[in-house]
């Protein structure tokens, strides 16, 4: 029987913000949570009905606080860029995003806002960051 499945190593998966990956990233998590509406009428005879009305899509990116020496780098967002983004407001806080799953999986795109940015530093280890994003609007497969 031919092997029709193809596993993928984690480093092939990337969240891109404005077509840039986050520099120093060690972990990227995607979460799709359906928005569920509950209803019940007498005709349901005590059995609740559920309907999915949408999805809440969130990303979490964790990595090492890293700065690139070049200004205006077109391929990566370093920790300065992420910090700048975390301080933006209104429409400036919305960033186009693309989610790539290697060359075989489907890619998805949408617009995200950063809902949390944390930098952690101690005396001995590398400084780390965590950035949380939430998709605003549609999140759709790229055809």
């Amino acid at each position: 029987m031919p092997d029709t499945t193809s596993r993928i190593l984690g480093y092939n998966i990337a969240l891109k913000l404005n077509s840039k990956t986050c520099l120093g990233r060690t972990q990227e998590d995607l979460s799709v949570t359906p928005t569920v509406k509950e209803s019940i009428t007498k005709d349901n005879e005590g059995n609740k009905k559920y309907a999915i009305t949408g999805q809440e899509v969130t990303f979490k990116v964790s990595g090492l606080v890293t700065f690139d020496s070049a200004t205006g780098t077109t391929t990566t967002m370093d920790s300065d860029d992420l910090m700048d983004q975390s301080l933006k407001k209104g429409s400036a806080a919305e960033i186009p995003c693309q989610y790539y799953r290697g060359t075989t999986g489907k890619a998805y795109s949408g617009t995200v806002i950063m809902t949390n940015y944390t930098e952690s530093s101690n005396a001995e280890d590398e400084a780390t960051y965590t950035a949380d994003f939430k998709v605003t609007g549609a999140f759709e497969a790229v055809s």
Partner: protein
Amino acid sequence: MTDSLRAKLVYTCRNICPMVLSEDETKVYPYAVYDITSVAQRDKDGVYAFFGDTLIRVVSNVKSEADTTAAAIQSAVETAFRDGYSNFVPGDFSKDCQEGIWTIEMNYTLKQYADWAEPIENND
């Protein structure tokens, strides 16, 4: 990036005393035995560092010689491995004497963030 923690450690201590692996221990004092267990650190774009759990054990039959050698190695290592391309975290230090042989053990976590090559020395 390639792991050069061992090479840099041996090069750093080259003028202090012989740095050997435990298999090469001799009775010619003083000498230092080293052992590094290094692990590659990766982010999604590849290896960005090597971290090495490092033991340096200075051995001598003269206490002052052991002290002097250990202090020189400590100074050299802590200077060489804080150069912007590498770093260190000091661990436990201990001293012991058995049957007239002094041993001073120094533990470090050595960190390498960029490629390193032994400098070409000009002896002209």
